[in-house]
């Protein structure tokens, strides 16, 4: 905000502003948080990739049941490490200005535990399990729930594809409200 930032040039800030949905202030705050998260080993810079576990210490991610999937999906090289730019990507998608389609795309990949590009029974069962945490539903209740979900949303068999998922999310108004956080 008002602090003098010496780490980014004007050009870089503008560049980030163009490429993400974050404002200048948010980018600077994000940099501050990033330094806090990974700054254990020396002065962090923008391209070094840090292990996922460091990023998962972010307060909003720490208690999120899907945190490993989040860091995996947003890691650009899929090497269980994230760079600052990946972190900015994460914040950009999670900001309130990101459109539904974009969020839906990433949410689909986050929920797709077995990474087969469809949300099928196993994916959904894991999702439900993570959501309810310690209070687990009985297995038959869980399978009944998942079955009902698939039955009503999966139109062509083979699990929920990304297009179906995006269509589905337009009917879930709570998604836009809840799939966001800001720094």
């Amino acid at each position, binding site marked *: 905000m008002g602090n003098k930032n010496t780490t980014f040039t004007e050009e870089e800030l503008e560049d980030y502003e163009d*490429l993400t949905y974050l404002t200048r202030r948010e980018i600077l705050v994000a940099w501050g948080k990033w330094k806090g998260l990974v700054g254990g080993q020396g002065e962090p810079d923008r391209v070094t990739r840090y292990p996922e576990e460091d990023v998962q210490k972010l307060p909003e991610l720490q208690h999120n049941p899907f945190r490993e999937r989040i860091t995996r999906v947003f890691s650009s090289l899929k090497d269980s490490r994230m760079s600052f730019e*990946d972190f900015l990507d994460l914040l950009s998608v999670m900001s309130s200005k990101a459109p539904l389609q*974009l969020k839906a795309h990433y949410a689909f990949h986050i929920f797709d535990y077995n990474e087969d590009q469809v949300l099928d029974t196993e994916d959904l069962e894991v999702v439900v399990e993570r959501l309810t*945490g310690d209070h687990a539903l009985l297995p038959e209740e869980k399978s009944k729930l998942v079955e009902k979900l698939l039955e009503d949303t999966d139109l062509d068999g083979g699990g929920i594809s990304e297009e179906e998922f995006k269509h*589905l999310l337009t009917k879930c108004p709570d998604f836009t409200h809840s799939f*966001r956080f800001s720094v």
Partner: protein
Amino acid sequence: MGSMSELRPLLREMKAHREDMSGDRNSGCRTSAAMSGSGGRGGSGGRGQKAGSARRGGWEDAGVEFYREAYPTSVDNIYDTRITTLLPSKRHNVNSLGRGTVRRRASQRSRRQPPTTTATLVHTSRRGSDTYLEVLPDLTQGVDEEETWEKLQQIRAHAVPIEEKRKLKQQLQSAPTLRTRGLAAFKLSRRKFFSQTKSRLREMISKIELWHWSLRYVEGNFGTGLVAFFTFIKWLLYLNLFTCVLLGVFILVPQIFLVHSKDSCIVDSWPNSVYDNETFLYENDTNCCTKYYNEIQSNSPKRDNYYLIQLVQDGVQGTGPLELSYLFYGYYPRHILVLEVAPEWKYNLPLAYLLVLVVTLILSLVLMVRAAARGLRESLRSSEGQFYQYCNLIFGGWDYCIENNKAASIKKKAIYNELCNHLETERYNEEKEQRTKKERCRLYMVRLLVNMVVLALLSVSFVAIYKSTIFAFDHLKDAKDSKESEQDKLMILLFEYLPSGVIVTLNIIIPYLLRALVKLEHYTPNSILVLTLIRTVFLRLASLVILLISIYQSIPACPDSKPSECIDECTRPWCWETYVGQQLYKLTILDLIIMFLTTFLVNFPLKCIGHKLMRGSQIGAAIGDIEFAIPKHVLDIVYGQTLCWLGMFYSPLLPAVTCIKLVLVFYIKYFDCKVNSSQSSQLYRTSRSNALFISILLVSFIVTIIPVGYSIAEIKPSLACGPFRGLDTIWSEMLAVIEESPDWLKAVLLFLGTAGFAVPAIIFLILAGYYYYAVAAANKHMVSLLKNQLVLEGHDKQFLLSRLNHMIKMSAEEGGENTSARSSRPVEDETGHSNDQTLEA
């Protein structure tokens, strides 16, 4: 057809894949289908690079079934996946990202190429886990500046890492663009300017956002459902501020700064007066009344003992020096104000008073309807069917902003509860269908009984309010007339607060009873919530209306006496509008005090006792665990806002008072939520909450319009005070202005009031409503038809894919047999060829 050329490399690849299948599962198959760039044009084919060298292997190694009767539900079949990546529907995805936001320009675009032809750059990964496709931008056509700029704006919406977006941006910027000239250039620069200013404005506004950190705290620790409640308070605050500004600019500022005309009051008039102009006499008398009233107010006996208490009491009740202040209607004179510097510019204060209030109410209605439409749209979408509620819960149920372990576990529990609720509702529905006739009868009898009990309760409370108001009013008159002894002072105080006290007590007791009664009725949890809410809202609003009615009753209309007898035997207060304004003002302040007391003197000690002193015990938990019940708090807020709207006409500064009150209320509720309450185990969904709050607000708005409208149109304003003194009704001011306006305007406005306009207008509205309903029903039917068709198409696709796989397998096996016989020839080409032949055949 391009598909053959696309299949060829695919087939070659399949062979390479076969060997890798048994090995590295993480590679290869996971083509991110969503990332494929598009075409329709030119050379896009699946091009994955494999790190390992191609080893020989047979289809048998793959260990998957290829020919299945059933539609494949798992994707072990890599060949399925490979083929499916070529399907047009899979390639469609990324471009739909950009397209949605350029919908506005689509009409202009129609003569140009569709946006799918331009660059969608995708990352090619050598790691092999995700294979993307790289498509070069088509630069054969000139891309003009506008398109480039639009694409640059939408780079953010692409679902690729920042590196890729940066490359894309550089490509777009370095691509040769046609310069736009003339009008188009001007329009483009204007668009750019607007979007830049918009984003800068937004950033500035977000910096000065009110209560940002408090809301973040609530968000992080309680979830977004509660944030919706506090956002609602913030929204109401802005609405009230808007109202304040309007009232201030059009009523207060002229009143203070413009020049008033002088009121002449000629007291001693000759019996056979020279002035037999009746209007002059009438005006003279009203002026004298006013003068007399003002004198009485300012000369009221100063009670020197307990000066501070007197001050506080006056402040809370609006009596004393506050009565003749800008706060109340009575102070505003019936003058036509003029500017000091330009005496010809007249400002008709009474007309302004009336018009501004009406316009403010209309604007508030418009703003609320807009917010309500948004909220209702969301909540309607989610209530389309039971399954969408499941989806809403599972995919949208987790708040990603939670930062607190405890909140996270509570949230999980809440989701679990809600899921169980849903399952139970299903069971309930199933059970409902299986109820025997006898049980159904019994249940309906019970419900009828409970409804009658509820009605009885409500009527009893209304009667109580009415009776107490009349009682207090009568005794107040008596007590005031004999205001000698000290004891009477206490009685006066009691009578002053009796009506408000009764209302408050009823508002506390009755909801408890309602909640207990509704349990007997065996509804679903959702229905219980809505029903209790409706009943409580009814109670609160109706008690206010009853209060007003009783005030109206206790101000008997005086016989149409001459104005010179404004000091007559009628027991009317001098200025009944101010009196009403005072009552509502008093209720507002009382409401605030009660909220404060409840939070700090009731809930806080309960929590301290429960959690600190009796820690660990069950009783302690029962006492100390106070949930932050959102519906109750919303009703408090809506009640305060209703008071504001009711009193706005009689007390123009009441919105300002309500603004200050809302700020204090925010902090009180925030303290209540943060310190006193334990986490709620009920899931409050933002979409549903928004719709609920605004609907209740709308209902109460409509209810308040009725008394205010009636009093404007029917009741005679007091002679001694206010901008409308001497008129028959307040509305006659408006009528007088209409009379003086030009003929055509007069004719139009008068026509609007007749039945000749109203009846056709109503019929037209009914027809329009029916038309939209019919269109919606037709659309719904269409949607279900299309859905069925989609399902069938999906089955077709699966069938065809499996056949295709089977055929490829057969031909591959044949090719394999051929090559095993002829070992010298390289395998790939042969099988490639033979496969092609089979397919082309």
